[in-house]
């Protein structure tokens, strides 16, 4: 069975600094998708970034980028120039190709210090 692990329950970063959130997953599949979602205190789940496993190039979205290491089954999220609005729970999610079922990690709470 596939699993997703986020080993950092909580992280802190100074405003304008860079922070990296870790995510590892376990799968025997070769085709899958990985996502990072952000959940601010409003509790809305917001897509941050998405990565297709068959693409070698790391996905980027403005200040957000991933380090996708397929062999190591690692999918970390880097947030550059952190802003107060980045404070939230961040969830890593895995989706096997051809299926509909997301598997979420347990989340990392990110605090941004002014």
């Amino acid at each position, binding site marked *: 069975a596939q699993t997703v692990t986020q080993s950092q329950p909580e992280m802190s970063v100074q405003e304008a600094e860079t922070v990296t959130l870790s995510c590892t997953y376990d799968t025997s599949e070769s085709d899958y998708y990985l996502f990072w*979602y952000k959940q601010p205190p409003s*509790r809305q*789940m917001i*897509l941050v970034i998405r990565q297709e496993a068959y693409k070698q190039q790391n996905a980027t979205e403005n200040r957000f980028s991933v380090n996708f290491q397929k062999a190591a089954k690692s999918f970390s999220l880097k947030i550059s120039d952190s802003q107060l609005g980045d404070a939230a729970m961040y969830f890593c999610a895995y989706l096997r190709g051809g299926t*509909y079922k997301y598997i979420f990690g*347990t989340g990392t709470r990110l605090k941004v210090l002014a």
Partner: protein
Amino acid sequence: DTAVSQTPKYLVTQMGNDKSIKCEQNLGHDTMYWYKQDSKKFLKIMFSYNNKELIINETVPNRFSPKSPDKAHLNLHINSLELGDSAVYFCASSQDGSGRYIGTDTQYFGPGTRLTVL
């Protein structure tokens, strides 16, 4: 122009009652989902419907019954509510076929419904 909406946003009720949560998406998506987020923030899928057909039914008590009257709506009815049902329930939707495989596309979430059972 809300993409995925849920009503109500908050629901407080007594044990033993029956309640429903409604979900609507105006994105034209084919697939809709219900997730449960517990007090520790853990998110787990409960159900999924594709074009009104049930495609995912996780190990959920049969007190929970989803209903999809059409592609844009997926409602969740809960009978005989228990204390352990207290959680945030999220509806989500996704579009088929735009990814490499059918079904493998980004899910868009509603704002969640916080259910409190007293």
